[in-house]
C-alpha cells in the first residue's frame, strides 16, 4: 500500500499535513519536556526531619568542634577522610566564628558547651592587641582582621548574655572601637590593621568582613543604645544597601551577604527603615534561590551535569543561617510577615538535607571496638568531597538551630 492512501480511497492532503504536524509536535513536546525536567526543573528533594532530630544534629556538630579541640582552645581546622590527614593550616576568623556558634548552642540551652566555648574564647583573648584606645585580635606578627573582631564581639556579647559577664561586655565595646576606627566616611570598613605600620591597611576590604563587623556594631547598639554603634552601623548599612560596596570593592553582582542578614535581625530591635526592609526581602530571595538549587542536587548521574555536586556545607549553611536570621527578624517585623511561611518551608527543607547528610556515629565507625581517631574527626561533620572544615560545622550549627526555631514556631496550617 502506498503511503498516503487509505484502503478505501486516497487520504486528503490536509490530513497528511496535519498528521505530520502532530507527529513532529508530539516528538518535540516529549523530547523538550524530558530536557526541561532534567535540566531546568529537577525535583526539589526535602528529606523530613523533626525538630528534635534537627537539634540533635546541631549538638552532634558542636560535639565535633569540642571533641577535636586542642587544649589551648583551637579547633581542628580541617580533615580529609580520604587521606586521613588533618589540615595543618589555621584561620583565626573562622576560629572566632566557631566560638560564636558554640555560644549560640549554649544560648539554646545546651549548657555543656559553655566550658569549651570559654576555652576557645580564651585563645582569642590571649591574642588581644591594643592601640589608640581600642582592642583587636591578632596572632603575633599577623595583621588584625576585621572579621575576627566582628565574631569576637558577638561571642563576647553572647557570653555576657549567658553569664551576666560585664567584663565581656567591656571588651566587646573596646573592640567595637577598632571597628569604628577602621570605618571610612562612606560606610565601608577596612579589613586589616597592620601592627608594623600602626595603621589600617589601605584599600583592602573583605568579602565577608564588612557584614561581620556590621553585625557586631548592631549587637553593640542593642546592648548600648547610647553608644556610637547605631550611627556607625547605619552608615555601613547605607554602603551595602546602595550597592556602593559592589562598585567600590569590584563585585559584578550584589552580594548575598548572610552576615548582613544577622545585622538586619539585630537592627530590627531598633526598628528598620524601608530600605532595610527591602534589603531583607532581597537577601531572603537570594538565600531562597540558593537553598532551592541545593535541594535539587542529588550528586548523581545527569543531575551533576546540570546542577553540580551538593554544595559545600559551609556554603549551604551560610544561606540557611542567613535565612534563619531573616526569619527571626520577620517574626517581629510586620512588613516581612508574609515571607514567614515560605522561609519556614526553605529552612525545614535544608535542615532535612543537612540532617540527612551528616556523618552519623555508625557511619563514622565510632562505638565499634577500637574506634579510630578518624571516626572522631568524622562523626557529626559534613563533608564536601571527603573534606570537612571547622566552618562547615559552624555555619550548619547556626542554620540548624535557626531551622529548629522556625519549625517549632511555625503556625499549624
Amino acid at each position, binding site marked *: 500500500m502506498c503511503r498516503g492512501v487509505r484502503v478505501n480511497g486516497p487520504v486528503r492532503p*490536509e490530513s497528511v499535513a496535519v498528521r505530520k*504536524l*502532530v507527529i513532529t509536535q508530539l516528538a518535540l513536546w516529549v523530547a523538550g519536556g524530558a530536557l*526541561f525536567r532534567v535540566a531546568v526543573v529537577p*525535583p526539589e*528533594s526535602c528529606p523530613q526531619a523533626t525538630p528534635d532530630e534537627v537539634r540533635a544534629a546541631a549538638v552532634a556538630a558542636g560535639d565535633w568542634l569540642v571533641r577535636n579541640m586542642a587544649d589551648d582552645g583551637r579547633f581542628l581546622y580541617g580533615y580529609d577522610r580520604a587521606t586521613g590527614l588533618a589540615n595543618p593550616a589555621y584561620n583565626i576568623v573562622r576560629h572566632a566564628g566557631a566560638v560564636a556558634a558554640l555560644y549560640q548552642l549554649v544560648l539554646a540551652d545546651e549548657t555543656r558547651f559553655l566550658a569549651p566555648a570559654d576555652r576557645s574564647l580564651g585563645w582569642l583573648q590571649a591574642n588581644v592587641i591594643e592601640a589608640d584606645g581600642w582592642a583587636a585580635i591578632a596572632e603575633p606578627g599577623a595583621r588584625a582582621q576585621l572579621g575576627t573582631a566582628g565574631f569576637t564581639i558577638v561571642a563576647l556579647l553572647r557570653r555576657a548574655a549567658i553569664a551576666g559577664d560585664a567584663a565581656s561586655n567591656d571588651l566587646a565595646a573596646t573592640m567595637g572601637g577598632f571597628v569604628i576606627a577602621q570605618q571610612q566616611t562612606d560606610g565601608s570598613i577596612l579589613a586589616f590593621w597592620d601592627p608594623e605600620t600602626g595603621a589600617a591597611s589601605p584599600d583592602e576590604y573583605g568579602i565577608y568582613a564588612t557584614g561581620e563587623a556590621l553585625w557586631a556594631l548592631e549587637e553593640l547598639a542593642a546592648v548600648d543604645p547610647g553608644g556610637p554603634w547605631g550611627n556607625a552601623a547605619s552608615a555601613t548599612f547605607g554602603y551595602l544597601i546602595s550597592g556602593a560596596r559592589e562598585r567600590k570593592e569590584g563585585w559584578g553582582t550584589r552580594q548575598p551577604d548572610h552576615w548582613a542578614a544577622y545585622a538586619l535581625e539585630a537592627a530590627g530591635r531598633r526598628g528598620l527603615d524601608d530600605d532595610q526592609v527591602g534589603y531583607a526581602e532581597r537577601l531572603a530571595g537570594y538565600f*531562597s534561590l540558593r537553598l532551592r538549587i541545593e535541594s535539587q542536587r542529588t550528586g548523581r548521574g545527569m543531575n551533576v551535569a546540570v546542577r553540580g555536586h551538593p554544595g559545600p556545607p559551609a556554603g549551604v549553611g551560610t544561606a540557611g543561617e542567613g535565612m534563619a536570621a531573616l526569619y527571626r527578624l520577620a517574626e517581629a517585623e510586620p512588613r516581612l510577615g508574609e515571607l514567614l511561611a515560605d522561609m519556614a*518551608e526553605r529552612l525545614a527543607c535544608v535542615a532535612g538535607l543537612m540532617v540527612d547528610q551528616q556523618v552519623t556515629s555508625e557511619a563514622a565507625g565510632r562505638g565499634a571496638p577500637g574506634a579510630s581517631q578518624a571516626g572522631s574527626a568524622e562523626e557529626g561533620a559534613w563533608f564536601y568531597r571527603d573534606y570537612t572544615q571547622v566552618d562547615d560545622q559552624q555555619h550548619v550549627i547556626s542554620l540548624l538551630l535557626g531551622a529548629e526555631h522556625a519549625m517549632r514556631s511555625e503556625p499549624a496550617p
Partner: protein
Amino acid sequence: MSAWLVVLSLLAALDPARTAAALGSTPHERRLGIVGAGAAIAAGVLILVAALGDSILEGLDITDETWRMAAGIVVGLAGVKALLGGPTTPLPAPLTRPLHAIVPVAFPLLLRPESVVLAVLYGATESTTLAFGAIALGVVAAGAAAVATTPAPGATTVAALTRMMGALLVVAAVALVVAGIRDV
C-alpha cells in the same frame, strides 16, 4: 506579578497574528466553526491546567518560585524564536474537517509550551479570576484574529506583529526570572 504582565504575557504566548497567518489558506466560511471550537478546546485545556497548577507543581516536587524561573526560560526561548525566526508558514492545506479544531488549531497552534507553562504558573500563583480571565482573553484574541482577518494578513504585517509579541515574551521572561530570583 502585575495583572498587566500576566495578561500581556499570555496574549503574546498565544500570538494572535501567528494563528491568523497559519490559517491563511482556510476558507473564511469554515474558520468560525473550526477556530471557534479549537479556541474553546484550548481555553478549556489551559484553564484546566491552571486549575491544577498547584497539584502539578506538587507532583513535580517543584516550588512556585523555581517554576517561575523555569517558565521565564521557556517564554524567553519562545520570544527569541519569534524575534529571530522566519515568517509564519501557513498550514499547507485548508482546514475543513471538524477534527481540525483539535489538531492543529487547539494543538499545536494555541497549546504551545509557552502558553502551557504560563497557565501552570499563573494557576498556581495568581488569583483564579486573573489566571482564568487572562487565559480566556488571550484565546479569544487569538481566535478572533484568525476568524476576522480575511484575507490573511500580509507576510510583512505578520512578521512585524510576531516580532512584537516576541519582544513582549522576552520582557515577560526577564520579569519572570528576576521575580523567581527575588521570591522567597
